């Protein structure tokens, strides 16, 4: 009952939120929503202990796939977004064969190389990827009406509602996975792969599973992005974006589901709203970098550790591995 009230309040808050923001803030809000899915999917991958540097490129795979499919086959945009996720998952499955021969640092670098190769392929093959200039005029979401509300997708507010629903469903699925025996197995693979394997866990299969699922949701987030901004190019998914994802996850903390999301929200607001509005356009990366360093030095367990201090109740429920450490 209490939970229901919280959820309703949250939903109401999200419905009102864009209406109190300026236009540019509304745009930030849409990106933030999409990035939340991106970073939450990234966390699923880190559950098994692997850190990838190719996640944003996989997001791009979803973006390119959805953009191209809707354009060439006339697939409706919502289905294109789904297809984008599936293509990203399939590409990840293919990549998992070489990549999961590696672990740790080598996986990090290997995933980076694989991602860069994909990006360079987009650059090199003007047909169909549009080369360095990328794809333009990507089909927007078609406007529609649900009676009491007209979705007009040139408005960031409308797209925010749409994206929030898609992202909400995806987060729910990610959450269900994490809190399931599958999620527990991911943790097991991370913390003590030998013992997990001796308990009959196929390590390679579970690492691959986490990678493929995470990639599928990253692909969906990419497709959401593509149909919002209408133009994408290889540099939309370069390593700088990856660095942002990495820092959201680490500054937020990765031992809880909400940690990376928290990191994403806080850092985005800091970077895009506070620093921008203070008029610090040129010093923005400098301050951002400083924040990054200070937070890793003085808050090594992430923002989530601060939240945990306030909410630490010994809940004797199942599956609460995130209180570990």
């Amino acid at each position: 009952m209490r939970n229901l009230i919280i959820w309703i309040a949250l939903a109401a808050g999200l419905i009102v939120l864009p209406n109190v923001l300026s236009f540019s803030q509304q745009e930030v809000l849409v990106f933030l929503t999409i990035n939340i899915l991106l970073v939450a999917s990234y966390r699923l991958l880190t559950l098994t202990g692997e850190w990838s540097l190719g996640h944003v490129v996989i997001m791009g795979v979803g973006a390119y796939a959805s953009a191209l499919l809707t354009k060439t086959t006339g697939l409706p945009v919502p289905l294109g977004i789904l297809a984008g996720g599936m293509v990203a998952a399939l590409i990840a499955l293919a990549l998992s064969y070489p990549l999961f021969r590696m672990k740790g640092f080598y996986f990090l670098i290997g995933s980076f190389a694989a991602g860069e190769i994909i990006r360079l392929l987009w650059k090199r093959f003007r047909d169909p990827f549009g080369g360095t200039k990328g794809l333009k005029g990507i089909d927007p979401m078609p406007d529609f009406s649900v009676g009491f509300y007209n979705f007009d997708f040139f408005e960031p507010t409308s797209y925010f509602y749409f994206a929030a629903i898609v992202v909400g469903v995806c987060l729910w699925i990610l959450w269900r996975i994490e809190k399931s025996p599958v999620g527990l197995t991911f943790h097991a693979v991370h913390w003590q792969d030998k013992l997990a394997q001796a308990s009959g866990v196929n390590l390679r299969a579970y690492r691959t599973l986490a990678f493929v699922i995470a990639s599928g949701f990253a692909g969906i987030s990419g497709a959401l992005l593509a149909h919002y901004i209408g133009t994408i190019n290889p540099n939309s998914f370069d390593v700088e974006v990856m660095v942002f994802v990495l820092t959201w996850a680490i500054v937020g903390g990765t031992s809880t589901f909400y940690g990376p999301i928290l990191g994403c929200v806080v850092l985005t607001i800091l970077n895009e709203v506070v620093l921008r509005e203070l008029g610090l356009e040129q010093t923005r990366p400098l301050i951002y970098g400083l924040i990054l360093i200070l937070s890793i030095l003085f808050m090594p367990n992430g923002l989530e550790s601060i939240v945990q201090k306030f909410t630490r109740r010994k809940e004797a429920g199942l599956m609460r591995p995130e209180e570990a450490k």
Partner: protein
Amino acid sequence: MTSLLQVKDLTMRFGGLTAVDGLNFKVEKGTIHGLIGPNGAGKTTTFNMISGFYTPSDGAVLLRGEDISGLQMHEVARRGVVRTFQHSTLFAELTVLENALVGTHMPFRPNIFAAIFGWDRDDRDGADARARDALRFFGLGDLMNEHAGDLSHGHQRALGMAVAYASHPDIILLDEPFTGMNPEETKHMMGLMKRLCSDGITILLVEHDMQAIMGLCDNITCMSFGKFLAEGGPAEIRNHPAVIEAYLGGARHVA
């Protein structure tokens, strides 16, 4: 009749060192079989080969007559051979119950789609019941929500066994399970092992504690410097000149 488990000419070389050298022995179904030998004799290495953690350099591991050498550890486990590790190897960051739940991975294989939609209630309940049973069996019933890393040494060893037991294996390989336990706990644990055995679980046991070995085992294989030394019942092994020689000659520790 084929034995449940048989190792044939099992050999493991690490570079120039031959840690296990042409080892042969059989483990019969429903027995407790001891594997003893001085420190460095190659017992853990033998376990590692049986469980699929190492691929033998030579020789074979036969499970019910089927050659399982060279399979990966999870493939071996799925055939009913489950092991514990010499040093308390646990998911220290997870709770005791979660540790045991990982142990139920094989009988209650997780399914991701069922998990998302909540169609796996029965499996989850089954796994939960099984895990709690295993924990209670090993006396950890009151500690289910503790972090495994916070347990005492003796409890950690018990948890390692509970994780292995939770999958209800046919044969369980225990590597020095009594280390870190006081005599009281050891005695209690011995009782539990006898019960496991009478439930039909075969046990292959490596252990320091000679008293425990002699009290538990139906059959004992003794090895030294990677080679087979002697085999027989407790009484035979106790008085076997080669065994005495190996332990006294090795002079340091009885292991």
